[in-house]
């Protein structure tokens, strides 16, 4: 566990998630996305909540006894030949605690976990219109990766030749 102070002079602890943190995580996510997903977060907790120094990490930021942010990620190995990297697939901070360094602390903490696991790259992917989170990652020094996300509508694939 590490400790620092945000700009509001509030002590912030970053630690592994506990089951009792789930309600706060669900509420933070629901406030950001407009969609409560309790079943999803319980499933994430089952997969990522157990201490796993090698690959999976689910961390929360706590201040004054309240969970005010979370980050989830894992080491992903050799997708399409890409060397193992630390992959962040969820990060959020309670709206009233933004711009206090909470997100930076969370990202830094999970990056350290990934580095300890031996990977040298941190990656993520998000919608290009998610300017808030995109700007956050940019502010942390992240740049465009040498990958292009692709998708297709499954109902519109061309007929086989």
């Amino acid at each position, binding site marked *: 566990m590490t400790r620092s102070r945000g700009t509001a002079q509030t002590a912030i602890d970053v630690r592994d998630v506990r089951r009792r943190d789930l309600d706060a995580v669900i509420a933070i996510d629901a406030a950001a996305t407009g969609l409560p997903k309790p079943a999803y977060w319980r499933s994430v907790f089952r997969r990522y909540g157990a201490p796993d120094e090698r690959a999976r990490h689910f961390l929360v930021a706590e201040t004054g006894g309240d969970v005010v942010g979370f980050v989830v990620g894992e080491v992903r190995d050799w997708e399409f030949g890409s060397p193992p990297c630390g992959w962040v697939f969820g990060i959020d901070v309670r709206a009233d605690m933004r711009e206090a360094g909470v997100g930076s602390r969370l990202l830094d903490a999970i990056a350290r976990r990934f580095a300890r696991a031996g990977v040298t790259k941190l990656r993520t992917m998000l919608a*290009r219109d998610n*300017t808030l989170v*995109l*700007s956050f*990652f*940019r*502010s942390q*020094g992240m740049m465009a990766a040498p990958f292009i996300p692709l998708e297709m509508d499954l109902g519109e694939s061309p007929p086989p030749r």
Partner: protein
Amino acid sequence: MKLQKNTMLALYSVVEFAANPDRHLSTAEIAARHGVSAHHLAKVLSELARAGIVASVRGVGGGYRFAGNPRRLTLMDVIARFEDIDGAKHGGGEPATATAQALAAIESEIDEMAKATFRSITLETMLRLIERQALRAPANSRSR
């Protein structure tokens, strides 16, 4: 998305103002630094002032100073003052052929990525990026 000369000039100027928020810089000073006419730059700075990104400083040694919030102001906020971001379509009108439509779709895909990138970079992030680049670059290429 190809940026016009005025847009690039605006970006260079805004970065310079944001890097020196306590100083006011004269049009002539910035124009000389970028090798453009003060008359030409004046129009760009005037537009930035209308947008509230810079504020004019009157009196002897007057000029402009940074007036934006570097944590909120993005590169796209600056670009949007000088480019027709949503209206400009390649060639204008609907492409006539399937080939033209497919090429237009690819160009649009590239444009959307470019816009998202510009929207995601605040002036504060840009200044940090410049610092990192300066640390990597040889000393003789650190001036711009």
